[in-house]
């Protein structure tokens, strides 16, 4: 006895009747079992109903993949009700990643060519939603035919389907492009809307299409003018504005066409002025059109007066009570701030007020815009506002605000002291949201500002004494106290309040940082090093520091342990060197710390028997050595970590006693030149394998004639091993075409003097050439 199947409504009632999630799941599973059985039995009568139910449970989140084949069957059925559900199922359940989707291509084709209008509409809708590239290619001609259909319903759908097809298969643009111009003459708004969308898509994809469509600008202007002037039309108007959707689309297309093009821009000027002044702004629809007009005016080559009008409209909108309008105004101003900075500056006070908005979307926009508006004249005021905002803003905005303030401070800081103050303020307010390079920047800044050392160290000390949980602050403060601790004891400094600090207090603070569970390992490293430095700056604290070092010699953190053990050495075996090593750091070069590292590496080469000082990121130094070209070697986090030792001289020692000297790159050698053909050799000695020499032979051709059949062979003395890899090609096009490169690997285990003979054969200027020569002037570094 077959159970009567539930109608969709009944199923929904049952599901809603379920009191708990588990009950609902039960009901649905039972029903799905029925549906599956029904699909298996192949009941054509109720198939559409079963699929409708399946789509409902699919929306609630239950699996429905077993309905995919049923969609195909329903689409193939002649009945409209079947097709309707079938196509809906296809759009919701099928996707182009499964091969099954291709099976509906045939049904769609049939429906497009022979179906009644609603069916054609369904097919087009499905195609434009889930049509894959293959489907689009197969069905392009069908859709093209529908462009000629008399019914506007089908035509407008065909046009939008064409947009989707072009997105999937750009080559199809050539089919649809010629049809557009004619469609612009249509009266039906749906068709016009689709056509404008299609033209916009074509223009965005191809500059040729863009040029082609520039000639329809007058037509577009005319259409828009009619719309604006036609006044109230019951059909398409939304609160008194006639078809704002079409107006907005046309304005957007005009923007694309008028950009960077004088002539088109001129053709639109009058119309834009008209729309900007005459559009009703009391309702949302009018405002939508107005905004689009403003954006278009700003994007094309419009008259100066018009631009001023546009920015003023935006400024007016900023004061509007409607939050949506304010939001869109802020977004538009953000787009304009790059190109029309001074115009937007005029509205700075209003923008800053928007920072106080309780609405998070608005305050985020206001923040972005405020940051973009900071310049050298308003930096103090703006930073004050932004800092105020930072204190009260929601956490997700804090990171952006903090980095924005720091960036602005870096670009426009009027004085060093102000800059340090600003960074300090940011670190204390939103410390944990600050990016790592802020620490590096601050330490550099403080290091450079010699006159402010005392000031900085006092401020940092006070800030740290109050709160040790903000990690970046703790790190900078620890470093600073370590470096300039002696200045801290000196009593008075004009720029801050007098601060009486005892040596013991300072050490206690650093020890607190060291021991706190809130401190990151990096912070503790800073604190440890700072303590070490203070052992020379302060008097009479050596024992205490020594004690700390001994304790930390058995710390679980390997990094700290290593540091502590090595610092400990300074108290024991190398006590005589302690003062020298822990001297104040030299100024770091601003912005190029990696260059500084290279210079110091050469200094390091000269020192041989010093105690190995641990340096934090050993990996980066290896990279420095391997990096034979002068590229930067990594992230800027490393410079502050390398500060423990003074003079930088020992900074880059590995913990091996002798450090191989850094490898300067070996100069290239031009070995052959004839009639415009040149052969250059470049040499690389990888440091890991001392016996290996890699030579790259590069052949270039600057003459008028091609070089063909180029072959290079090499020979070396018997005790060497030579390996020649395949060249990149054998033809050198004339006039500086692509060079040929070939790699030679030479193993020289005995470090014997290198001798190299080369044989070149090639065709040039119609003659075949053979050259044999020995390479002279090989640099010593190639084999020593």
């Amino acid at each position: 006895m077959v159970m009567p199947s539930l109608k969709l409504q009944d199923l929904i009632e049952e599901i809603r009747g379920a009191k708990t999630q588990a009950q609902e799941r039960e009901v649905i599973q039972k029903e799905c079992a029925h549906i599956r059985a029904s699909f298996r039995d192949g009941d054509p009568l109720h198939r559409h109903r079963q699929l409708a139910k399946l789509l409902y449970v699919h929306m609630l989140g239950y699996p429905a993949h077993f309905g995919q084949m049923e969609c195909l069957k329903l689409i193939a059925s002649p009945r409209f009700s079947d097709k309707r559900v079938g196509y809906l199922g296809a759009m919701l359940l099928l996707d182009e990643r499964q091969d099954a989707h291709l099976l509906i291509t045939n049904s769609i084709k049939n429906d497009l060519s022979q179906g009644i209008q609603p069916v054609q509409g369904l097919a087009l809708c499905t195609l434009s939603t889930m049509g894959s590239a293959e489907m689009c290619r197969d069905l392009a001609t069908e859709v093209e035919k529908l462009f000629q259909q008399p019914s506007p319903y089908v035509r407008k759908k065909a046009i939008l389907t064409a947009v989707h097809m072009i997105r999937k298969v750009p080559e199809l643009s050539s089919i649809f492009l010629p049809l557009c111009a004619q469609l612009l003459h249509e009266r039906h708004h749906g068709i016009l809307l689709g056509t404008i969308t299609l033209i916009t898509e074509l223009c965005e994809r191809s500059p040729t299409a863009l040029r082609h469509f520039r000639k329809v600008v007058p037509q577009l202007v005319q259409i828009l003018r009619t719309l604006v002037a036609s006044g109230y039309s019951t059909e398409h108007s939304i609160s008194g504005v006639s078809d704002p959707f079409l107006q907005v689309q046309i304005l957007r297309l005009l923007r694309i066409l008028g950009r960077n093009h004088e002539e088109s821009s001129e053709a639109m000027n009058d119309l834009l002025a008209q729309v900007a002044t005459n559009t009703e702004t009391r309702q949302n629809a009018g405002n939508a059109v107005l905004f689009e007009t403003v954006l278009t005016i700003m994007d094309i080559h419009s008259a100066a007066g018009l631009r001023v009008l546009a920015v003023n409209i935006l400024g007016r909108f900023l004061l509007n009570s409607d939050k949506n309008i304010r939001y869109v105004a802020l977004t538009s101003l953000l787009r304009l701030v790059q190109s029309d900075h001074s115009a937007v500056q005029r509205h700075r006070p209003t923008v800053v007020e928007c920072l106080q908005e309780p609405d998070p979307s608005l305050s985020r926009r206001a923040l972005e815009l405020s940051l973009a508006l900071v310049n050298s004249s308003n930096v103090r005021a703006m930073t004050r506002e932004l800092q105020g905002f930072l204190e009260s803003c929601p956490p997700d905005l804090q990171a952006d605000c903090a980095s924005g303030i720091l960036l602005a401070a870096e670009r426009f800081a009027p004085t060093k002291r102000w800059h340090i103050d600003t960074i300090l303020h940011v670190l204390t307010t939103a410390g944990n949201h600050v990016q790592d390079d802020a620490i590096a920047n601050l330490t550099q800044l403080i290091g450079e500002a010699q006159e402010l050392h005392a000031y900085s160290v006092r401020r940092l000390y006070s800030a740290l004494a109050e709160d040790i949980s903000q990690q970046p602050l703790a790190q900078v403060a620890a470093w600073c106290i370590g470096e300039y601790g002696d200045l801290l004891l000196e009593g008075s400094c004009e720029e801050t309040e007098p601060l009486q600090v005892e040596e013991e207090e300072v050490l206690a603070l650093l020890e607190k940082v060291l021991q706190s569970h809130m401190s990151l390992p990096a912070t503790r490293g800073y604190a440890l090093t700072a303590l070490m430095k203070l052992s020379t700056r302060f008097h009479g604290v050596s024992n205490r520091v020594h004690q700390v070092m001994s304790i930390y010699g058995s710390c679980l953190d390997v990094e700290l342990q290593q540091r502590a053990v090595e610092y400990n050495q300074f108290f024991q075996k190398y006590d005589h060197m302690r003062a020298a090593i822990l001297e104040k750091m030299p100024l770091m070069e601003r912005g190029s710390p990696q260059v500084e590292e290279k210079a110091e590496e050469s200094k390091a080469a000269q020192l041989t028997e010093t105690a190995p000082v641990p340096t934090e990121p050993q990996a980066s130094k290896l990279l420095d050595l391997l990096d034979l070209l002068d590229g930067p070697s990594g992230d800027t986090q490393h410079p502050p970590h390398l500060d423990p030792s003074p003079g930088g001289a020992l900074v880059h020692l590995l913990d091996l006693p002798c450090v191989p000297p850094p490898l300067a790159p070996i100069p290239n050698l031009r070995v052959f030149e004839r009639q415009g053909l040149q052969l250059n050799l470049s040499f690389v000695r990888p440091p890991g394998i001392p016996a290996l020499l890699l030579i790259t032979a590069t052949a270039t051709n600057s003459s008028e004639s091609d070089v063909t059949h180029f072959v290079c062979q090499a020979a070396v003395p018997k005790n060497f091993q030579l390996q020649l890899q395949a060249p990149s090609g054998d033809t050198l096009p004339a006039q500086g075409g692509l060079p040929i490169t070939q790699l030679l690997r030479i193993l020289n285990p005995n470090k014997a003097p290198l001798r190299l003979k080369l044989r070149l054969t090639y065709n040039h200027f119609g003659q075949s050439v053979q050259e044999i020569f020995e390479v002279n002037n090989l640099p010593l570094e190639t084999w020593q």
Partner: protein
Amino acid sequence: MIQAILVFNNHGKPRLVRFYQRFSEEIQQQIVRETFHLVLKRDDNICNFLEGGSLIGGSDYKLIYRHYATLYFVFCVDSSESELGILDLIQVFVETLDKCFENVCELDLIFHMDKVHYILQEVVMGGMVLETNMNEIVAQIEAQNKLEKSEGGLSAAPARAVSAVKNLNLPEIPRNINIGDLNIKVPNLSQFV
């Protein structure tokens, strides 16, 4: 381009879920949930625009939503759409629903989910705005409903009767009844079953 259209109620139950970009089922449900949480946090007197959640991806996407009584209508769009325009579009869609269902309420959306999809298909197609003239849309929908009803006359109404007949254990119906010289061909009734 419109990436997705979501309608859910104040408790997050989905009433209409339509994606114009391909996501797997799990991701779809996650997006619905995430969107609901984002939208729920909004007060009533702040703007209708939200920066999009992380799942729909990218910084280019915004959520534009409107709250009508117990339902949230959320359109997830990228930067090529006019924000205020989409607000109007949501209004057009809701008003069209109102015309088609006569004073639409949440129950209508619940029990006629498929019809809501068909109406939406006339307004937005492939992520792009198709038609905003309410009269045209309503006329199309009515024509299609009529078409469906007229077809339905063949089998939908007496569906239960037919299945009842099917379930009767009728003896095998002979194809031909041969009585003497008469040869009556019995029509095949199975196509109606």
